[in-house]
């Protein structure tokens, strides 16, 4: 955890009580299936939140509908379990009117990419300073096991007994295309890394999008096991580190290099020189796109921060317009009420 050691002070020097994970645990009974990956994500979030040094009351979690979307009930902050797919819109209204709040959106692969795909896209495009966490379990959990937009082609589920006939969406690709200024991926089981990514996402100014690979042990068990299992993880996942060459393997012995515009695995690459070097801050999205396309089994699966750039934020620009307008014209209602032409009728 690289969160700065806390001295219990906020930016403006005011004393804040030091909060702990327990302070972010609500009194609601957690109702996910035993073994569900959601537990790990909740725990990492609750662990990470104190490090933000933000008073609880200034944090709001907004979710849609789905197993994942029950999340807000369990966090002792303000919480809104809204309707299917619309969490980004509610977060937008909240953040635009209360820019001082820290707003999280929790969503699922169905909630965020099926019914709510468009809102997600537009929230990211607008670069509001909110943090979106998408729990991708490649299934509809809450409705008991239909395929989702991230389910593999041909997957057999309750609603696709003959196998699906549609190509899955790649959430990070969409986020990058939509213009999200922070795009990352993490895995429920790798808790330390997950906590770190959540922290960085929350710190980023602008829309942060984090895809979390989450195991639904009831309806899609082991969806990510092929590369997240402890014993294969090193060889099949690639931990992105800014400024570092793309390397993976137990001894970080393998690397990724570029051949024209195509990435290639270089097995046992002794030299860093020809490997692709990660640069999350590059303004152009080509690198992030290259990473987003890398997938198991052709490539190790990249996790970590794909992209992190600064850009003007919606709520900030809007607030500036308000301030500027105020400076240019005092808010006097009478002239407005009178309009451009009046006439007086006398007794």
């Amino acid at each position, binding site marked *: 955890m690289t969160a700065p050691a806390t001295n219990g002070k906020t930016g403006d020097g005011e004393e804040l009580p030091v909060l702990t994970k327990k302070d972010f645990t609500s009194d*609601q009974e957690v109702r996910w299936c035993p073994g569900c990956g959601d537990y790990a994500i909740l725990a990492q979030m609750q662990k990470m939140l104190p490090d933000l040094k933000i008073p*609880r*009351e200034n944090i709001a979690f907004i979710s849609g509908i789905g197993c994942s979307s029950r999340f807000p009930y369990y966090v002792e902050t303000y919480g809104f379990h809204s309707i299917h797919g619309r969490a980004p819109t509610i977060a937008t*209204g909240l953040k635009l009117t209360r820019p001082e709040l820290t707003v999280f959106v929790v969503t699922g692969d169905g909630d965020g990419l099926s019914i709510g795909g468009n*809102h997600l896209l537009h929230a990211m495009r607008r670069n509001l300073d909110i943090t979106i966490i998408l729990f991708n379990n490649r299934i509809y959990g809450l409705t008991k096991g239909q395929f989702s937009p991230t389910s593999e082609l041909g997957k057999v589920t309750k609603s696709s007994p003959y196998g699906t006939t549609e190509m899955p969406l790649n959430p990070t690709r969409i986020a990058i295309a939509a213009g999200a200024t922070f795009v990352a991926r993490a895995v429920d089981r790798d808790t330390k890394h997950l906590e770190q990514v959540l922290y960085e996402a929350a710190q980023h100014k602008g829309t942060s999008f984090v895809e979390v690979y989450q195991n639904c042990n009831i309806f899609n068990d082991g969806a990510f096991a092929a590369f997240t299992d402890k014993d294969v993880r090193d060889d099949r996942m690639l931990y992105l580190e800014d400024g570092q060459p793309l390397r993976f393997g137990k001894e970080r012995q393998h690397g990724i290099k570029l051949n024209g515009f195509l990435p290639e695995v270089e097995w046992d690459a002794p030299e860093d020189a020809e490997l692709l070097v990660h640069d999350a801050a590059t303004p152009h999205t080509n690198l992030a796109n290259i990473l987003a396309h890398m997938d198991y089994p052709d490539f190790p699966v990249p996790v970590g921060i794909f992209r992190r750039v600064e850009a003007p934020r919606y709520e900030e620009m809007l607030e500036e317009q*308000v301030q500027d*307008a105020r400076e240019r014209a005092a*808010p006097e209602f009478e002239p407005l009420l009178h309009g451009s032409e009046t006439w007086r009728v006398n007794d």
Partner: protein
Amino acid sequence: MTTESPARQDREVQRLERVTVRFAGDSGDGMQLTGTQFTKTTAIFGNDLATLPDFPAEIRAPTGSLPGVSGFQISFSSSDIRTPGDQPDALVAMNPAALKTNIGDLRPGGLVIVDEEEFSRSNLKKAGYEQSPLEDGTLSAFQVVPINITRQNELALEEVDLPSKQKFQSRNFYALGLVLWLYGRSIEPTVKWAEARFGRNPAVLDANLRALKAGYNFGDTTELFQVRYEVPPATVEPGLYRHISGNEATALGFLAASIKADLPLFYASYPITPASDVLHELSRHRNFGVKTFQAEDEIAAMGAAIGAAYGGSLALTGTSGPGLALKSEALNLAIMTELPLVVIDVQRAGPSTGMPTKTEQSDLLQAMFGRNGDSAIAIVAPATPADCFHMAIEAYRIALKYMVPVIYLSDGYLGNGSEPWKIPDMGDIPEIASHFADPSTTDFQPYKRDPETLARPWAIPGTPGLEHRIGGLEKSSETGDISYEPENHHKMTLYRNNRVANIQHDIPPLEVQGPESGDLLVLGWGGTYGAIVSAAENARAQGKSVASAQVRYLNPFPANLGEVLSRYDKVLIPELNMGQLSMLVRAKYLVDAVPFNKIAGQPFKIAEIEAKIDEVLGLRGPYELDFGPTSNLGGA
């Protein structure tokens, strides 16, 4: 009637109580501007008036085509006036298409001014005329005055240094000048306005003023008009007046609510005819702290409004019928989470895309019932363009006191129509109180209700100690935790319902105009007010026992509605729909109200309601709506 040409000064002047004029031309011809300027001048002159603009169907159709026609109607009077008039007395038609689509509405004997030069073979063809109506006698029922406006305008602008295409665009000022002369109005207000408007472009200003004066002087010098008309000022309540359209009054009303509630206004909307102007208007007022958000769709706008309400702002979203349908699922979340916000629906003709630029009152039942589950909602509906201001404030008074979403039903007729308005004194409007949760509460319960209003506390993020969770699942009364308990759901459903029903104690009783009891009550809601009141007044003037009342609070109804209904032998409910208020009234009061339905995208004419009144009173046989040959004001 033709007489020898009199000297300018002693032109015959006919005094009239009321006159209705319609300007019509191609969408490029500036008819809305002409109408608006004439309206302003008339308002300043002191007449009571009402207007009805009519835009073509959304896209700019090819010049000269029937769908490209744009119209503006104004009725002005020396006495109280409440509708833009049933039938124009005069029509200004800038081209054949404008003539064709509007002539059917003119009263027999009415005055027709046309720009003769535009009646070329090709223009006639575009309008679907085989031969010129100016020549084939088809206009014999009217007083036709063909004027070579285009040419006259050209001559007047000879010295102006502008391309001829641009000079052509001053024709509407010429027509305006002529009509101002005809009705004895001054050109001064228009001159002033033009100076302000075109000040930065002297050539255009010069052109427009020359055209205006040329038109005025042409009236004064020509012998084409035997009569000039005079409509003396009305005696209206003293005070400071302005002219206002419904959409403007709506925007200002909500801004006033924001001031009175001392909460910043947040308006989330997705553009849609005829509601877009509210977005345009509100987006201009950042200096009042108004934040507008053009959402990706209506659902997102609804969601954003919910987020803003959750955050403690004055949350507003606005749309028209199809957009309200889209918002319905999310609106239900506002009902379930008991957050105060207002949804504007500027109704238009449906179903589906329908006729976007035409008016209708057909979203009442959608507003009442268009959501899953038992989901009562408060509904208010302004009755005139200026009333929009007042009802907007009312909407928030209710929303904030009862912690409920409120639907505000305007319509295209109200939104685009306008009337003179006595500007209220902001000091007279009471403050609007909000009911924020007490931050010092220990063991805060987000669904613990105020015993009187049944409102839950408004606990907004940022308040230390009140952290809590809300959502769309049923929740336990008081704690707000998720609950599937049968009795709890029953109780909460009743609470949600009663909270809305309760508002009845807090809204004014229905006011009746006319006798306190009698043969017939004509009951209406929304923009039909003018036509209904006028028809009932006319009926009373003829000695009939007819009262009228306009319901402005549609859910809940005013407490005295049932009692009022019981005082009349018959109840007639005219609506621009298939009988939506009728259904609600019949179901609630078991009164055999007679529906009178017009679903034509147009407001009622006074005469139509008069005829129906006579039918219901047994004074005539069954009355059928008569749409006339082409009764389509403006675009096809």
